[in-house]
């Protein structure tokens, strides 16, 4: 009993300590990312897709509602469990016609999405439409410890090689792609992959590379380098890949 009380006190203390300290505040060396398009969020409708050619899918509304029985369905009280009541309707509920679901239009064989004023947004960074080459720096992918996004000292020479390549080829840009192994939850891994991509980006900036030449993206756990389900595969999957981007020929 005493032990329980003591551990409760300890828990309370730990909670208070964490409350006071909170999460870490942002250090000054975190760099802001360039907005892909001017005016980050367009007014509603600016990115609206053309829905004229979509096929409505029949489906009831979500949640408990009168539509669940489909068109023409009714519920009526049973008279003594046997007879069906007459045409007076009893307690039957009127059923509203269900709302169709309309899927987004397919984009493979269709015209591209219209983006209002024609400036397509580019969450990747500022190098939309550039040619991507994943071979050039494929040996420079850097690895991370489980659940960490700090650059390991063993990986610094690869980052130096990436920086050297960028210095030697001043017209190219690079995309840092952050990846995770499958052992995290998917929502968490998307954020962790982003943190890893940003760690790579920050390190390159420290080595003197202009941040405007560096895009970043997180793939979470969806782009494993090794599809195995073991320690060796996971170690290869916790990584940043460096993709060289070259401007398209005019």
């Amino acid at each position, binding site marked *: 009993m005493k032990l329980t009380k003591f551990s409760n006190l300890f828990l309370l203390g730990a909670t208070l300590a964490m409350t006071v300290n909170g999460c870490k505040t942002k250090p000054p060396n*975190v760099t802001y990312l360039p907005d892909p*398009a001017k005016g980050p969020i367009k007014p*509603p409708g600016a990115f*609206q897709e053309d829905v004229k050619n979509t096929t409505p899918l029949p489906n009831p509304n979500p949640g408990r509602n009168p539509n669940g*029985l489909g068109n023409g*369905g009714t519920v009526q009280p049973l008279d003594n469990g046997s007879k069906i009541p007459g045409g007076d309707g009893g307690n039957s509920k009127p059923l509203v016609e269900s709302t169709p679901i309309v899927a987004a239009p397919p*984009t493979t064989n269709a015209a591209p999405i219209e983006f209002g004023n024609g400036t397509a947004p580019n969450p990747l960074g500022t190098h939309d439409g550039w040619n991507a080459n994943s071979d050039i720096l494929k040996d420079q992918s850097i690895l991370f410890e489980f659940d960490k996004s700090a650059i390991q000292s063993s990986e610094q020479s690869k980052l130096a090689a990436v920086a050297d390549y960028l210095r030697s080829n001043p017209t190219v840009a690079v995309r840092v792609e952050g990846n995770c192994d499958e*052992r995290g939850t998917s*929502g968490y891994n*998307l954020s962790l992959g982003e943190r890893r991509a940003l760690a790579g980006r920050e390190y390159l900036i420290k080595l003197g590379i202009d941040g405007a030449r560096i895009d970043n993206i997180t793939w979470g756990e969806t782009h494993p380098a090794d599809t195995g389900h073991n320690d060796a595969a996971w170690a290869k999957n916790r990584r940043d890949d460096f993709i060289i981007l070259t401007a398209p020929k005019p």
Partner: protein
Amino acid sequence: MKKLFYFALIAASLAASGSLPLQAQEQPIEIGGTASFSGTRKPILIHLSGFTGEVAEVLKFDLYVMGFKEETSENALYELSGSNNGDVKAELRFTRGGGGAGAAGRPASLLAQIYTGPNARALAHRLADDVVLKVTGINGIAETHIAYKSGSGRTSEIYIADFDGHNAQEVTHDHSDVAAPCWVPGRMALYYTSYKLGGPSIFYHNLSTGERRNFAHYGGMNSAAAVSRDGRRVAMILSKTGSPDVFVCDADGSNLKDLTPTREDESSPCWSPDGQWICFAGKVKERRALCKVSANGGPIRPLETAMGSPSEPDWSPDGKWIVFTSQHGGNFDICVVPAAGGAAVALVSGEDPSWAPNSRNVIFVKRSNGNRVLSLLDVPTKQVKDVTRLSGRESSNSQPSWAR
């Protein structure tokens, strides 16, 4: 259990005296700890007779998911009898395990209805919900819907389906990667993450009209949208400040605010039903923790769970509980903790939970041979049923969101 026993006595005497049909109630959910709720309840024993084929299958599935268990007529507390020749006729009685023919004679009827309509599944779902409402006093979830990610690796699409996986429909066909679908409460609309434009950006998709717009496409990551119950505010993860943070903005994208200006990576924000708080997965002193922050900004407060590596929180619609994933090594558990924090209870192996509108059921993800399967959990009884998988395309389904 004692309560239930006394209640059974009272109910039986009422039935014996031939009073009006009973509005039987399950014992109320007690506040004050998970011990009284999560994984501690006995299932409600029911006997089904007279139903066949798909109607019988649906009834059994739905009632099991919502905390019932089939028993022999002698031992069941409730008897659901009927038929399904075209129409579905059903009668529910409280039998106290008397098999419907005890000394007191034919027990009073709690429900006697005829369900008419072209879709037998829909009729059976409605009947299951009516039974649940009569017995527990709480709306069932048999007519609700889910959204989820289908597919894995570099190609996946957003789907919606009935809560049991039937009537699945593809919402996107972008041949891109998607993530984190989220219903707008009470609306036929979703937010989700898509790589359609390159990196992860957030789309709003009106399912009634097909209108789709890019809701957030700042530099870096845009993901994990969560909508407040009134639909007016959206929480999400953006990394435009150089680190993934929880942001909140109005539904039109205005009044954007960084609620967690940390260097750490935050993920999976969710709203308290009153719209005051946002709970998310963050880090405290390098250790992963659930945290909450006022939706208007303020200090980040850790939420004690006493569980390792928590992530993916979801706040129950009644405000009382937070369900989340705890990770240990490569394994995951679905856990429930009081919304104020405390000792969480681990219920079942799985991840990425989402509450049903009844604050009782949870849909979550199981890993199986490299694929992911959606599964339904009844939190009080720990009863679990896998969501039916209907087509080859859906070999891997994950990231469910329950419409509520």
